């Protein structure tokens, strides 16, 4: 497709997908609406692929714009870079919608919810297609409002949904305000709102720095960067899981797109821009992964992991900007490719993980890891798909995450610190942060996968899945969604070469080549990675091993036993197993200062015998330290201000009339001056 055809198709499909839920009977609503939304997503993918090939087309929307205000027409014209994000948003949106056909029930399958989902998806597709500030902000707001409606879906069932939605609404509009201010600074300087005009103006100086800070903070809020992440761990767990997947895997990426857009609109700035991005990214990565490692709520854990991954992406961008400023363009290009690979990879594995979490929630009604276990026997598809997603998240070979983090580490290791002391210190530290993030991420996902799927069930609901209240068996669409998203994680890892080359071309950077069958090479820094060769080596070792093992198996088959060792005792209760909380206990101790856990341990003794123990109670509460220390004081101050305002409003009509009279006098006085 070329020209505006793909864009028109997206708009038409969106119209259909928004209307379908209102026109279909209840029984067919989920299949038809989900199918329509999935088609819309695929349309977005097609438009994105066209845009990546440079044939995105231009579509000027006939919206009424006051001609005097210095506004350019509302135009959609996706750039190749926007095309990447179109593909990501469309693909994730389609998969999540397809999964939602079987998953959504109750309020999440209502007319409003399905319609809002389509609108949300449309918003996500229009953001990277926008070619001017006005259409960008309109699309951004559509995305924000529709997703707020979706987060609110279950508000009648769980009261926590309401507070989560409030947090989300406040933060997302804070983001909008910051963006409005940032773009206003740029548009005022450029004398128009088209991105082309703004980029041509090449803003620099203090105005550019102000716009940079406003825009990065605005986009960072959406992207879930620490310390602006507070909405993520609240909204993601409360939204229906397919919506969480779309929000986490696609919507937060729009924040990343925004940061890339900002960098493209501005002339290269002072060194602290890159350094600031790097610090913001590293802080998010570390804080996110630490919180994810100690959390036991599966979806909350995944939400923090989103913060972590966006942190890694922004770290890569920061390295790119920092090295680009220092004149090391070739290494900077590697970092930019790493950032885009991380975007695509996170989209793939976070979809698999959230859909898997949704599937667990669906069959057990639980998202507390401490109460799960043993699901690998009853739900093998979920186990494998979630497992592949977890492998991607932990950058194990050969997955998309592995390739992306390999490229990021190559960018870090090849940056030359000899010329600049700041770089000489920041690059190794960034490398340490990335490495620690990877390490803690491993712990997090070993915990998440193994506690949920292995060993024995830790609760009645996990022991008898599918019989949980209000849930039903897995439908074919859910299984298909799981399998496709899991397979994508691996496929994108194997397609390292073609994927990297396409992404580099879309971002307009060079220095990437294909090598071998599927491999990727960065000739400028002299490194290459060939997944096919690595697989061949693994097979060359695994096949003889398997053959030898098969011989051994024939000779001495495995024997079933009720009690292998059990440390000398009969296994009594699953309560003796390690839980997610106990798994992370050493970390909570080590990082106690930054996690600030509240623990209570009470030991009770039998009457008159202080040496024996009759009962031990332990409870631990972990809170988000940043939320506690930075946001709650502000909230309390606002509430106090509200209380103070009550002093002048005592309900007396006479007093209000007096206020009006004084106000009138003031106005007259001002006018007469």
């Amino acid at each position, binding site marked *: 497709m070329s020209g505006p055809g793909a864009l028109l198709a997206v708009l038409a499909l969106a119209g259909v997908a928004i209307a379908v839920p209102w026109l279909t009977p209840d029984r067919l609503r989920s299949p038809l609406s989900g199918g329509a939304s999935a088609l819309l997503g695929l349309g977005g993918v097609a438009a994105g692929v066209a845009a990546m090939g440079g044939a995105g087309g231009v579509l000027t929307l006939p919206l009424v714009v006051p001609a005097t205000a210095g506004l350019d027409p509302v135009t959609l014209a996706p750039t190749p870079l926007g095309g990447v994000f179109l593909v990501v948003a469309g693909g994730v949106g389609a998969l999540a919608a397809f999964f939602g056909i079987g998953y959504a029930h109750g309020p999440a399958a209502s007319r409003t919810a399905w319609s809002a989902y389509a609108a949300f998806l449309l918003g996500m597709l229009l953001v990277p297609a926008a070619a001017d500030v006005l259409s960008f902000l309109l699309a951004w707001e559509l995305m924000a409002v529709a997703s707020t409606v979706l987060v609110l879906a279950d508000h009648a069932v769980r009261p926590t949904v309401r507070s989560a939605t409030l947090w989300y609404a406040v933060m997302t509009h804070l983001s909008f305000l910051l963006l409005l201010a940032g773009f206003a600074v740029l548009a005022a300087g450029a004398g128009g709102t088209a991105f082309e005009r703004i980029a041509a103006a090449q803003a620099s100086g203090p105005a550019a720095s102000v716009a940079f800070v406003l825009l990065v903070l605005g986009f960072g809020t959406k992207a879930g960067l620490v310390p602006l992440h507070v909405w993520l761990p609240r909204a993601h767990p409360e939204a229906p899981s397919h919506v969480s997947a779309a929000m986490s895997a696609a919507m937060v990426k729009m924040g990343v797109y925004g940061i890339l857009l900002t960098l493209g609109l501005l002339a290269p700035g002072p060194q602290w821009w890159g350094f600031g991005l790097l610090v913001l990214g590293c802080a998010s990565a570390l804080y996110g992964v630490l919180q994810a490692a100690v959390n036991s709520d599966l979806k909350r854990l995944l939400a923090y992991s989103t913060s972590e991954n966006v942190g890694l992406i922004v770290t890569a961008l920061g390295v790119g900007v920092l090295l680009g400023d220092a004149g090391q363009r070739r290494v900077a290009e590697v970092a930019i490719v790493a950032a885009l690979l991380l975007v695509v990879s996170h989209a793939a594995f976070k979809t698999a993980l959230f859909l898997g979490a949704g599937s667990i929630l669906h069959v057990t009604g639980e998202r507390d890891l401490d109460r799960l276990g*043993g699901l690998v026997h009853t739900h093998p598809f979920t186990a494998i798909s979630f497992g592949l997603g977890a492998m991607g998240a932990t950058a194990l070979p050969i997955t998309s995450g592995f390739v992306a983090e390999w490229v990021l580490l190559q960018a870090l290791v090849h940056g030359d610190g000899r010329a600049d002391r700041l770089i000489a210190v920041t690059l190794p530290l960034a490398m340490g942060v990335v490495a620690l993030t990877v390490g803690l991420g491993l712990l997090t996902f070993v915990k998440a996968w193994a506690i949920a*799927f292995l060993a024995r069930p830790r609760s009645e609901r996990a022991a008898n899945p599918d019989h949980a209240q209000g849930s039903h068996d897995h439908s074919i669409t859910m299984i298909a969604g799981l399998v496709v998203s899991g397979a994508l994680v691996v496929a994108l890892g194997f397609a390292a070469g073609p994927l990297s080359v396409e992404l580099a071309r879309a971002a307009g950077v060079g220095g990437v080549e294909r090598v071998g069958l599927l491999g990727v090479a960065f000739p400028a820094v002299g490194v290459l990675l060939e997944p096919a060769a690595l697989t061949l*080596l693994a097979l060359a070792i695994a096949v003889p091993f398997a053959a030898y093992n098969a011989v051994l198996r024939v000779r001495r088959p495995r024997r079933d036993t009720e009690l292998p060792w059990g440390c000398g005792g009969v296994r009594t209760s699953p309560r003796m197993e390690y839980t997610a909380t106990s798994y992370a206990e050493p970390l909570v101790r080590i990082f106690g200062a930054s996690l600030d856990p509240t623990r209570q341990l009470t030991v009770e003794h039998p009457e008159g015998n202080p040496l024996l123990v009759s009962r031990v109670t332990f409870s631990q509460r972990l809170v988000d330290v940043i939320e506690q220390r930075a946001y709650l004081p502000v909230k309390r101050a606002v509430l106090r201000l509200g209380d103070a305002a009550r002093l002048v409003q005592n309900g007396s009509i006479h007093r209000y009339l007096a206020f009006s009279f004084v106000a009138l006098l003031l106005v007259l006085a001002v006018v007469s001056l």
Partner: protein
Amino acid sequence: MNAAVLAVLAAQVVVALALTPLLIGVMRQVRTRLEGRAGPGVWQPWRDTVKLLAKEPLRAAGSSWVLWLAPAALVVSSVMVVALIPLIATPALPLLPADLFVVVSVLLVGTVALALLGLESGTAFGGMGSSRHMMIAALVEPTVLIAVYALSIPAATSSLGTIIASRLTDVTAVMTPAGLLAIVALFVVVLAECGRLPVDNPATHLELTMVHEAMILESGGRDLAWLELGSWLRLTALLGLVVNLAAPWGIATEPTPAGLAVGVAAFSVKLLAAGAGIAAAEVFLAKLRLFRVPELLAGSFVLAFLAVTASYLVA
């Protein structure tokens, strides 16, 4: 050329497989002798492995495919690491360089396999070992990468073969402060990663202090044999990497038969000597309390970080 390099990879695997039980045997024997006991001789790990391989494994009710997949994943990943790391010769296949980050990722597959196995058994011990193992792995990660980063700066590459080859040609590079700091840091993390004292006691059983043993407690028969062999191979690979970085002499830079023979001999001597040294030192060391381990690892991280900044700012 490529066929010769393939032969090198195969030779590395064979040598490592043959040498690894001997390395463990030597380490145990040195330790027992220093403690005034007779010891079973250096070939005991070989005999143990052969015996375990012939025995049947058990499957507990409620266990899953992780039970047999984890030992297999551990062995395959360990053997891959042994093939990738330049142990006896530095040349690598053009499409399969001994890239540091790839090696670390493959090692992590084994780490994760062990941790999953620990949780699979569903006993308190397994979970405890798994949790501690992953915590140590997570804290080790930054030091490993930064230490090799420091060593890679003079060679400007993350390919281990090139780094070792460049250290071989430039003897002064081996003795720079940055290089020494990095080697010390790397050595500490190898001890931690392979479960040696003072981080984990390889000789301990059924104590609340154990890490590695706790995870494999429920495995038996050939599962146990593979788990032990896989873990030992990791020690061979990592210790081999450290000795080759610290003292690269003897490693072959060309895949010729004569060079390989020298490489094998030099590697065997270096590895066994390093193993004997570690075992001798272990006699005088007590295991650190688990929550003191992060301090040790943080110390090694600082060394590695100093090594990087030193090689940028001093050189």
